[in-house]
């Protein structure tokens, strides 16, 4: 090489190379450009071939789809009566516009009208006897311990550690207990693209043609359904917080040291849970700095941090990543720090939380970290008075914003096919803020802050604005937009301790020393004929079904069911003198299908204002049947379905008189020209045309609010 050539080389290379960082950035830029051009060329070349292959090889709906796209916006728990009232008062202009374009109906919910049951029926078009979901929890037949009714974790991930390597031998085996199949599986078979975002009971994610992000029952990193953490310098007290851990910490100088509790050690189970240390250093009276995993974050009292990525290391080459948010509650005189449950990091998911598995990663790359926990809004944090109303509201609205970003991205990316997105903040906020709407509620505070005086109405108005923004994106005539809820809402003033009632009526015997124990631990099974656990019903202690069952199936069991149904149906609240229960349903009579035996034997349809008591829900028997509900969790829908119908808005006329959640699945299949399977219990709703004369111009929609445009 001559000096001349080397000089040129130096010239060229030193100009091109300006350090590794910038070099990588430049290389990345060119890669992205080449990637885009290459993929565009490939797409153009292969698109006609792919199209042809699809035409030849794929199954097509026997009838031509009536619409290009169907969009379903699920607003969990939007109540029909309240919506009607607010519509009449002119407070929901977008929903009013939707009603005038198409229709507005009450939507019959399921028995019981609770989210896991209702959304399972929504997606399968069958009654619970066929989809096998009857409650959030069901008792284990051997141990009587409550277990999740929709998911079963058969085995944890198995890893082998041969130092210094850790290998995953077997992935965790998680089984979906919901039976039947969602209607988008049928659409998939006919080549229709689906985008399913956060519809409850979609975990573990199932294969489909399209994309899906799972919701209800996605655990946190610890494997629970959401465990918050509180770090405090308060003196230690005995009582446990439901749904959370309290860590008593000490302040040394201006520093507090704590640790986050992560997942169980993946290779050495005897080592317990993995931990991640953090320190909080007080900068001044009102601010502090959080140092965790080599990064620092500012903590300001009353303000959530962004999602912070937390890595739990189980070896030099094995770590499990989660995301959580910190909220500094107070610094002086007591230090109080709240940490949300540690969600599975969507960018590096520890288990599949969507389909294809890259879809949650795509969303995280696109919009940043987001809540992945099934029940993302921390209602327990507020119920246990760790959070206040503002904190909880902030959490809910932040999660709604994240959801809206996902939803609107799906509307942009899926011009043809099905888009479903469920916003469940509506349900959580109504649960927690109903005491501000109900002037007679026992948990209603004497002084209500102005912000919360109309908290529920404000929520409905915010959802109306979301509907407006959605309508603007579904303006084309060949788009069907449905806004629906799985159930309505009602006040929860008084809890009924079903176990106490069963005890007083001779169906249940409690070991007095163990009366306070949770999860049916205080029950004397040798003498108990019926018991209650969960939100919905009563189980007969059947021989052959439960390990310590004493009631013979057949006549004896039927007699007990009849007795309980008739006696409980007459239950009068001594405080008000009114009937507390509308009706008691017998599962064998109301459900049809192969799984009805798994249902509680009796499903209690509470009257308005009543619900199962907190004690009975966790399998305790207290000293009295009726309890005032003084918790923040003040609204509920675990009542008779007739009390809490949901809503169905559509931008096309729905001609059928009465609509049920059960009817949505067959209706969507019909709109896409797909045959309706015979096993489906729902009927096709007659969807007419849009009232074109009343088509609201895009610009006239009320798009105000802090939503995502």
């Amino acid at each position, binding site marked *: *090489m001559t*000096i001349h050539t*080397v*000089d040129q*080389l*130096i*010239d060229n*290379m*030193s*100009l091109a*190379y*300006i*350090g*590794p*960082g*910038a*070099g*990588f*950035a*430049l290389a*990345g*830029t*060119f890669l*992205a*450009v080449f*990637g*885009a*051009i290459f*993929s*565009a060329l490939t*797409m153009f070349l292969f*698109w006609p071939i792919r199209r042809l292959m699809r035409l030849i090889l794929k199954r097509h709906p026997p009838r031509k789809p009536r619409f290009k796209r169907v969009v379903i916006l699920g607003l969990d728990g939007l109540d029909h009566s309240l919506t009607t009232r607010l519509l009449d008062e002119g407070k929901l202009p977008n929903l009013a516009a939707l009603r005038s374009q198409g229709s507005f109906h009450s939507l019959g919910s399921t028995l019981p009208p609770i989210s896991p049951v209702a959304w399972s029926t929504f997606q399968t078009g069958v009654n619970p006897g066929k989809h096998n979901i009857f409650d959030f929890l069901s008792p284990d037949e051997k141990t009587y311990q409550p277990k999740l009714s929709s998911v079963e974790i058969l085995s944890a991930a198995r890893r082998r550690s041969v130092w210094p390597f850790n290998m995953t031998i077997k992935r965790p085996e998680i089984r979906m207990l919901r039976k039947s199949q969602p209607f988008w599986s049928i659409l998939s078979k006919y080549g229709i*693209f689906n985008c399913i975002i956060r519809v409850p009971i979609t975990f573990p994610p199932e294969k489909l043609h399209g*994309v899906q992000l799972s919701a209800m029952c996605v655990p946190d990193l610890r494997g629970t359904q959401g465990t918050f953490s509180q770090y405090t310098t308060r003196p230690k007290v005995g009582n446990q917080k439901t749904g959370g851990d309290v860590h008593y910490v000490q302040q040394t100088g201006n520093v507090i040291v704590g640790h986050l509790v992560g997942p169980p050690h993946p290779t050495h189970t005897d080592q317990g849970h993995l931990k991640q240390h953090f320190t909080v250093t007080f900068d001044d009276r009102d601010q502090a700095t959080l140092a965790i995993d*080599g*990064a620092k974050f500012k903590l300001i009292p009353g303000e959530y941090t962004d999602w912070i990525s937390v890595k739990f290391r189980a070896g030099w080459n094995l770590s499990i990543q989660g995301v959580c948010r910190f909220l500094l509650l107070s610094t002086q005189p007591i230090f109080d720090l709240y940490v949300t449950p540690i969600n599975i990091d969507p960018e590096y998911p520890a288990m599949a939380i969507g389909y*294809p598995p*890259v*879809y949650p*990663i*795509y*969303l*995280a*790359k*696109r919009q*940043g970290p987001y809540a992945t926990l099934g029940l993302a809004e921390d209602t327990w944090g507020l119920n246990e008075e760790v959070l206040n109303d503002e904190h909880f509201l902030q959490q809910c609205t932040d999660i709604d914003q994240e959801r809206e970003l996902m939803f609107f991205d799906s509307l*942009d*990316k*899926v*011009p*043809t096919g099905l888009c479903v997105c469920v916003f469940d903040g509506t349900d959580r906020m109504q649960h927690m803020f109903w005491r501000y709407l109900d002037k007679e509620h026992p948990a209603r505070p004497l002084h209500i802050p102005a912000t919360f005086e109309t908290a529920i109405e404000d929520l409905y108005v915010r959802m109306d604005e979301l509907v407006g923004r959605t309508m603007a994106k579904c303006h084309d005539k060949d788009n069907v937009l449905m806004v629906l809820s799985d159930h309505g809402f009602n006040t929860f003033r008084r809890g009924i301790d079903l176990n106490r009632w069963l005890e007083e009526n001779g169906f249940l015997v409690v070991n007095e020393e163990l009366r306070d124990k949770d999860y049916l631990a205080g029950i004397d099974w040798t003498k108990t004929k019926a018991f209650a656990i969960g939100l919905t019903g009563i189980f007969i202690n059947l021989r052959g079904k439960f390990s310590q069952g004493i009631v013979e199936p057949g006549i004896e069991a039927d007699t007990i069911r009849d007795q309980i149904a008739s006696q409980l149906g007459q239950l009068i609240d001594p405080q008000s003198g009114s009937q507390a229960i509308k009706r008691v349903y017998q599962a064998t009579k109301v459900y049809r299908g192969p799984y009805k035996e798994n249902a509680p034997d009796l499903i209690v349809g509470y009257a308005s204002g009543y619900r199962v008591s907190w004690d009975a829900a966790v399998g305790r028997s207290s000293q009295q049947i009726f309890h005032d509900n003084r918790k923040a969790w003040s609204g509920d829908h675990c009542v008779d379905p007739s009390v809490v119908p949901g809503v169905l808005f559509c931008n096309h006329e729905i001609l059928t008189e009465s609509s049920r959640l059960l009817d949505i699945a067959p209706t969507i299949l019909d709109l896409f020209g797909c045959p309706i399977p015979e096993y489906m219990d729902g009927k096709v709703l007659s969807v007419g045309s849009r009232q074109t004369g009343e088509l609201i111009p895009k610009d006239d929609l009320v798009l105000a609010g802090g939503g995502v445009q």
Partner: protein
Amino acid sequence: MLVTLVLWLNTISNSIAQILLAPVAWLPGWLSASLIASVTGIVMLFVFKQTSNQSALKRTRNQIKANLIALSLFKEELRVCLRVQLTLLAQAGRLLALSAVPILVMAVPMCLSLAQLSLWYQARPLACGEQAIVTVHLKPTNNEVLPEIELTPTSAVDVTMGPVRVPASNMICWKIEAISRGLHDLTFEWGEQIFTKELAISNSFLPVSRERPSSNPSSMLKYPRERPFAADSPVQSIQIEYPDRVSWTSGTKSWMAYWFFTSLIAAFVARPLLKVDF
């Protein structure tokens, strides 16, 4: 102005390099080349972190990744894919724009560093008894006869041939032979005027200044070790044709490539520790 600035920069870089690169003289070539590449890679990475908008870079990089994933997730929709590709191109442009500041900040130090490294690795010093050609480039004049410049032999170097005058190119050449090791000065005399050029003779590593440059900023950057000739000097530059160094890590033909790749690898390895996004 620019000449003064480059002169000033060269003075600083020579002083720093004299200290920092001193171990190159006694370390094996592969080791010094690897160490220097690794350290500069990490230092540059750190500078990149400090001078770039890390959060914007991360966001943009994530957006690019998201769009690449979107191309596979939503491949059935031609229009959607085209829109995604357009966004991808825009984001690539944004990434480039975000890299502009660190590129500008690092360009000068990087050029100075490479010039200093080229003193050590671009050529090897003459071995004793080895011959080389020395060329003096003169300022073009209207005279057809080139001036009588003389190269005086010393105890360190002998003149074995020349001068050979090439009036068409305004240059005079000599062939010299190295006699004793060390850094020596070649002295060229023209009447009262004396011009010098550094000569490196050694069997190991020594900084090798292949040219004493003219007052041209680009040449000055390339050959930083010796003070440039003044713009009005009759001698514009003096070159010595040193032999190539043979080594794939620190040799003439590959030291720079080796340095590039080693610095990239070092930066890549250090990236998670320094938490740098690029």
